[in-house]
């Protein structure tokens, strides 16, 4: 496979915390690729290293060794202003706790990445309206976060993650703070954006239900990739995929009770 076809390459990433006797390894050589347009899920029990992995990809952490390439460029070695250029413009983020700025109205929150990167274009308003429509948040654009429901907040956050047309969206437990109904709405919207706009999404989750929207799932345990599931396209229903995910989770470290 040609390198240019791989959007994200994670190569032999190790991450250790502490020194000497207190040294602990969170990641022990993780290697995988993400192709353009993929909706990749990462699952694992608490302490398996999945959040560490996401943080490494999100440039919040530096790997101890190994490399992470985004479109052929090693983002793990970036510093200062190089990093700032990538964040928010090439990488979009979706957090469990939304992380909206509560003193900015929704509209201001969504276009914030564009302002920060000084990319205010004429199309900005059009793009904003499109996203607002897709995520069904047109009514709340002029509202402050405290005037919105949790589901609306997370959809505003999703619009913010997508506004700069990033190469990849990293989502950390995006349904973690939502009720079942809102979680379902959000996952449907994300899945729609993924399929229609071919936006690449990498999502870390506990939630087998949310994971069933993915096209591929990596299971991580004790710092290594332990298993991989692919949705059979075409043919496999979401429910069938869900069942398969549950089966793997049951095998992981003795069952799903650890993760819930």
């Amino acid at each position: 496979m040609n390198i240019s076809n791989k959007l994200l390459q994670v190569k032999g990433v190790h991450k250790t915390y502490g020194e000497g006797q207190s040294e602990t390894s969170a990641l022990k050589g993780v290697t995988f690729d993400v192709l353009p347009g993929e909706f990749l899920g990462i699952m694992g029990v608490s302490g398996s290293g999945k959040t560490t992995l996401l943080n490494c990809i999100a440039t919040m952490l530096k790997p101890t060794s190994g490399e992470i390439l985004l479109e052929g460029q090693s983002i793990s070695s970036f510093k200062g202003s190089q990093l700032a250029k990538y964040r928010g413009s090439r990488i979009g983020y979706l957090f469990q706790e939304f992380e909206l700025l509560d003193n900015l109205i929704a509209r201001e929150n969504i276009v914030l990445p564009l302002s920060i990167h000084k990319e205010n274009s004429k199309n900005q308003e059009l793009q904003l309206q499109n996203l607002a429509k897709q995520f069904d948040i047109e009514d709340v654009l002029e509202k402050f976060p405290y005037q919105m429901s949790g589901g609306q907040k997370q959809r505003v956050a999703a619009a913010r993650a997508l506004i700069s047309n990033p190469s990849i969206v990293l989502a950390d437990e995006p349904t973690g703070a939502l009720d079942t109904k809102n979680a379902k709405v959000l996952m449907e919207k994300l899945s729609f954006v993924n399929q229609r706009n071919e936006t690449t999404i990498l999502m870390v989750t506990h939630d087998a239900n949310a994971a069933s929207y993915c096209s591929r799932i990596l299971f991580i345990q004790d710092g290594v990739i332990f298993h991989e599931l692919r949705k059979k396209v075409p043919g496999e229903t979401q429910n069938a995929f869900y069942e398969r995910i549950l089966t793997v989770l049951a095998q992981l470290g003795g069952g799903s009770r650890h993760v819930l």
Partner: protein
Amino acid sequence: MFFDFIKRNSRKIRKENGVYFGALIISIIAFYIILSLGEQDVMAYLKTVESNAVNRLLLMIPMLYAVSLFFVFFLVYFANNYQVKLRSHEFGLYLMMGMKRSRLFLMIMGETLWNGAIALMIGIPIGVFLTELISLITSRLIGIGIIGYQYSISWAGLGLTVVGFIVVQLIAMSFISLKLTRKEPVDLLDDQKEESQRVLNPIWSIVSLMTGAVLLLGTIFLCTAYGLAILYLRNLDYRMFALIIIVGIVGTFMLFRGLGSLIGAWIKRKGKSSAGLFIFTGRQLQENVLNQWASLAISSLLIVMSMVCFVYGISTALNNDLTSSKTADFTFSGSEKEIISVLTSDELEPYVKEYYEMKLGYLWRFDPEENEWLDTFSWSGLSESVSKEVYSKEKENLLSELTTDNRPYLISLSSYNDMLRSVNKPPIELGSDEVAMYSDEEFTYSHDILREALQSKPYVNIVGNQYSLSSTLYTLNVVADRAITLSYALIVPDDLYDTFDDREDSYLLNMVLDDALIEEKGLMQAMYEVDGLLNASGLDYESYLSSMGRKLFFTVAGSYTTIYLGIMFLIIANTVMGLKFLMQQKSTRHRYFTVAMLGASVESLCMSARVQIWLYFGLVILVALISSIFGIWSMVDTFPNSISLNNGIGTVVISLAVFIIIEICYILMIQRKSDEEIKKLKQAR
């Protein structure tokens, strides 16, 4: 072990709350300086000449002390309330781990005491040093030899500083920690969350129209207060004064209450076309103003007060020329024989260099037949000459003084020449039909105009005869007693003088001390000794030193206390503003983190915070400066004598410079703190 724990916690508090700790140290220094005033060299000296007034001032100091203690209490309570809230999770954990409530209370009090002790250990040496420096500078300014310099520590001041400071801290802290230790551990553990939710739910959902109206109303109120101050304050009517103060205060509060919505509207208008962190910066500022309008208004008012205090204090310190010319050392009044017999006695003789009569009396002539005062004099020629000068306030004052003055003092030429000779100045020589004009050094504001007007040698009319005025204006003091000041007088030839002065009881005699003696003992010591001898003689006399002391006292008392208050107000206002800002920044640090994740560099975040700080302080300072302009303007109008316009501008410039330097120092300090906080955010991840 428990003590080590307290020490460790205290160190952490000092590090994290450096601005507050610094303010505590400065207030300790200020406390000591004001409390040791009574034992400063200049006051010790003044006590000997002006004991009544000094004692009254010293009675006033405890009041100043109490007011300052109240402000410090406010500061301690406010800063620690927040500090404790931030640590409530930590306290909750201690309780869960089995720490007794009483022990937690002891721990918090222990930390307070320990930090208080450290602040005292730093503050008191600086306070002692500064007090000595001030003492030395005042002695120098007044003249070496007049007041001896002596190193001294005010033990009473020291004691009161330590006790007051510790007691205020303990009271404030026990309020806070009692409230805290009554809470359940679960509330403590959750307290931080509650706090952040409260921040999430600001009061600004209230209709913005209303706040807009409030803003307008506030501005109108403030303008009304300014207008009233300029128009009516000089009447010194206390009801008008109260009205101005109330309208001004209410206006300031309303202005800040409404300001937030104005910022919001501005962001909305500008926001769409903006790049970078403009919106973030603007919204952070707006939230600060909306949540803290009351503190901002108080800070702004405190700054106005401190500006007015500074201008008053500095102008009092600068404008009164303390070292004005000394002509005679003692002036006696009474019977000539008695005085001279004392001065030529064996005891006093070695001290006396010379003495001469100072002939001084009213220009008056009484008509016994008509039983009334005759109109014998007018300044009309001079008035005419003055009225040709360009318009100024001083000129108008001078003209009205000259028209109402029809009985000026007369000074005999020979006496004045005696005086000039004793200070090694050339004597005056008057032509025929010529007299000279005299005006005391106190009245400098009119001297420039008078000198100009005298160039044309105008005429004055004395009992129907015209005399021309000499072109020189004479200002050297005629007597030692500075309480006697002559605004406008005439120096006339002795024969003319004798035609008016027929009274026996107004005999004045000036005495000058021996130069060698002053050289050897210093002026103060020499005067003390002579004073002791003269006291026993029962003569009526005034000395240069005691009359100067009276003036010196008003200067020192006026400038010392007002500058002290000015500094206290300024420090409290700035510390409150700085702490409020840093607190908001700390409680919204997750926002900074999010913005960093969206691609803002640490540098641009620091820059955004710096802009926030400048605007935040700038808003308060701007409102305060505008109010101060009117405040100082009306003060200058109300007390034109203590703040003359000539020096007024210089004073305002100096006060403004001092103020701006202090403000910039504060802003830079807060900026450094904010940068540290933002960089910490980066390290944490």
